[in-house]
């Protein structure tokens, strides 16, 4: 694969980020990110899947260099190798971060309304965000923006529109436009299609994919929806209770998962044309203020043995680019009703 030849753009090593809070004597430490290491290569789409309160939101906050109290990085490094030089976001000064923001590192957020000011025309918002990083003014800037919008199949007229005059899909395309107009090297997309209808969702996804290919940017795509990952990601990483439990090429993750949690996520997806009973996973995700000992998935895991209850499994390489943190990964079989019948055989 071409991915192997490409250099790493982001290196995360042993990252621990905790929320430390104290309210009227109730002290709490939430270990939202508890030792995550991963690398993301140039030009790849890396999908991050995880449930609510799995720590994925905190993790991408750190990646996006938006670390604000009570969230604190306790350990580890997050290093980007941008073209204009490396930056370590956990120690960088606000000025250094400001320097790379939008130009090298940008985001597409969930609700388009949180980026678009409802009382400002879209064109104004583009100016606010992109004029400085692009270093263009007047007609040159406008020209650049219009060309970019055309790439997203948006007419130049949207620049004169207010956000509420656009449909949900259009607005989300505008936010994608905002995030990509400076040709950033790294884009963080946080559930960008969750609020969209199915038809529009597919359009927006293919748009993100196209523009990413064209610019050869890296994208971290966060969503809890596994079927979105199946279609957009090159690699998928699964976060459970603050830890990366499995990562690998998308195809392998869906057809030969090596962690029981991944296997379950894939197997529980219903498909049109198939009415066989889907399994449900019992229990609930652990409380990050008081996580279980050993493997954090063990209370819900059908394969759990004593070792799982006591020792934390390390991330082991099980195939090329495929790592899993499970003591019994060799026993993990794709569950009944897995995404592809051939997957059972493989």
């Amino acid at each position: 694969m071409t991915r192997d030849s490409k250099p790493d753009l982001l290196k995360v090593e042993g990252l621990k980020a905790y929320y430390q809070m104290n309210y009227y004597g109730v002290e709490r430490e939430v270990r939202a990110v508890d030792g995550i290491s991963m690398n993301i290569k140039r030009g790849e789409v890396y999908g991050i899947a995880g449930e609510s309160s799995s720590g994925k939101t905190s993790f991408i906050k750190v990646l996006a260099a938006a670390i604000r109290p009570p969230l604190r990085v306790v350990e580890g490094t997050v290093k980007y190798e941008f073209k204009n030089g490396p930056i370590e976001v956990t120690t960088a000064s606000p000025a250094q971060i400001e320097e790379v923001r939008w130009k090298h590192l940008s985001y597409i957020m969930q609700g388009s309304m949180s980026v678009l000011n409802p009382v400002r025309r879209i064109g104004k918002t583009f100016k606010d965000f992109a004029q400085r990083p692009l270093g263009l003014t007047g007609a040159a800037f406008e020209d650049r923006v219009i060309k970019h919008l055309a790439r997203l199949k948006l007419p130049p007229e949207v620049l004169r529109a207010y956000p509420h005059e656009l449909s949900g899909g259009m607005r989300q395309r505008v936010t994608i436009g905002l995030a990509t107009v400076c040709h950033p090297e790294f884009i963080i997309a946080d559930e960008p299609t969750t609020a969209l209808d199915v038809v529009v969702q597919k359009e927006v996804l293919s748009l993100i994919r196209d523009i990413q290919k064209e610019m050869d940017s890296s994208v971290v795509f966060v969503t809890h929806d596994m079927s979105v990952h199946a279609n957009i990601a090159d690699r998928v990483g699964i976060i459970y209770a603050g830890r990366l439990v499995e990562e690998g090429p998308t195809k392998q993750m869906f057809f030969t998962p090596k962690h029981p949690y991944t296997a379950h996520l894939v197997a529980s997806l219903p498909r049109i044309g198939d009415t066989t009973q889907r399994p449900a996973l019992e229990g609930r995700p652990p409380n990050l203020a008081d996580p279980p000992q050993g493997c954090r998935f063990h209370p819900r895991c059908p394969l759990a043995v004593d070792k799982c209850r006591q020792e934390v499994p390390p991330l082991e390489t099980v195939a090329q680019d495929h790592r899993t943190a499970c003591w019994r990964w060799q026993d993990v079989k794709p569950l009944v009703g897995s995404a592809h019948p051939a997957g059972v055989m493989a």
Partner: protein
Amino acid sequence: MTTLLDVRNVSKSFTMGGIFGRKTVNAVMDASFSLSAEKPEIFTIIGESGSGKTTLARMILGLEDPSEGEILFQGQKVSRHASKAERLAFMSKVQPVFQNPFEAFNPLKKIERYLESTARQFLHTKDRAAIDRAMDEALQKVGLSLKEVRGRFPHEMSGGQLQRCAIARALIPNPPLLITDEPVSMVDASLRMSIVNLLKSLRDDLKVSVIYITHDLATAYYISNRLIIMQRGRIVEMGDARTVLDNPQHPYSQLLKASVLSTDDAGAGKLATDPDMVKAANGLVGQAGKLVVRPDGREVRVYG
């Protein structure tokens, strides 16, 4: 065959805007379907935002009056302006389950509060033991128990557990019909199937009819008996869930099915939607047409 719910040529239009620039939005146009009292089923309403599916549900719940047509529940007209006693009697037979379980419970109040109030109001009892028994029975039906729930606040439970509590609450008066509006869209992936399977078992084991409102074709296929597909207020296709979804006939239904993200070829990165399909489907918005019965039992809207 007696009908449980009869939706007859129901339309709903809203007038938007003030004195100037009034415009009328037709949220639902001429919708008709009925549910049988003898044969419990999961009846799915599929649609995107703006399709009118939520408005239709609100009318069935009596939160909104139809502009035209009428809705009969067990032969009685559903109305927003019913007397308090009629309203309570109606609520004991038709109960809703809301979309977001974290929003459905007041975060500052204990969960059992809603169950307790339901038991007290609809079982007409003040006896503590009877109320507790009713709560526990309902919670058992959804795989929980009063012991697990008592004294807990919403934030102490997962989305899946909360949604079960919400369903348990709705089940307390033993209603023959549940209206569930996107009940799993806010529930985490690993807990989602337990809710979907629960809805299935409500139908099969407890003989409760469920109106399942969703935009997700895959779960609709998985659990529903019959379904309708709505496009901008109009029913465009209606019939047996498998028949319709295996081979949709209306252009919009076909587009919806084509837009479902498949995991069959995960990693292949196939995302393109046929633009002609989108054009064909969107071209039909605003055209009246009429529903025609096909030999396989389904109804499809045809035009011209």
